[in-house]
């Protein structure tokens, strides 16, 4: 079977998403978990671009705009997340996610 470029792009983004997901799930280091989430976000951005580029009715700039905002939000998220990592480290002298369970009900 032959795949259209859109599908290829989507497969690429799916793969990247899953790599991020596996990383986020598998690693205990909070920084790596955050980076995995970051990768997943990027995969989503790739989807936006792919649809904007290869999608059925490309509007002039919507996809691009989406990605721009998404990157901005991702930057904010990364900043806050890493700040949290530092805060956690200060508390428990490590950054193992599975130990950061003091908020549980």
């Amino acid at each position: 079977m032959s795949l259209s470029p859109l599908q290829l792009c989507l497969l690429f983004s799916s793969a990247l998403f899953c790599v991020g997901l596996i990383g986020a799930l598998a690693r205990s280091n909070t920084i790596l978990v955050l980076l995995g989430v970051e990768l997943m976000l990027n995969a989503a951005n790739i989807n936006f671009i792919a649809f904007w580029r290869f999608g059925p009715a490309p509007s002039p700039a919507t996809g691009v705009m989406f990605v721009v905002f998404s990157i901005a939000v991702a930057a904010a998220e990364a900043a806050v997340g890493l700040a949290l990592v530092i805060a956690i480290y200060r508390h428990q002298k490590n950054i193992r996610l599975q130990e950061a369970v003091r908020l549980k009900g």
Partner: protein
Amino acid sequence: MSIAFLIIALVTLGSAAVAMSLRNLIHSALLLIASWAGIAAFYLWAGAEFVAFAQLLVYVGAVSMVVLFAVLLTRQSRVDMAIAPDALRRIVAALLAGGATLGVLFGAVVSAPLPIAASATPVTVSVRQMGQELMGTHAAALLIVGALLTVALLGAIILASTGREDPPGVAPPAVAPPTRKTS
């Protein structure tokens, strides 16, 4: 399908996968920078130059630095780095969940009757157009994003800087309690 796309994809995925599996955090961070760069290359390939540059600036430039700082600020001893007893189980679970997601997504993408690209010619968006869009149609969103970034950065500063100057035993300043609580 162009060779370029394949190379970009392989580089991006490979470096991301290796980054996720390495034990050394500095290496992981560096490999992730490569991965993000790959994504920027994808954007260029796809014809979204502005986004590509934004990606480079934000991720390769800024986020990577933050990550490196975070890594350096949270250096741990070798003992602490020891693999947790339940690591293997977690990894297996992660692989299963991830594999399932991958399978489902691949299945969905392959089986979905996605419309074939209507126009082969790429639509380019000039920076001027982008500027007009941002300040026109998406002005509200731009403002909100600005506010969000400001708040996020302020929050990050507060989170990361808690209690530095507090002498022990003294009640923390007004901003401190929520920080303590959330940490």
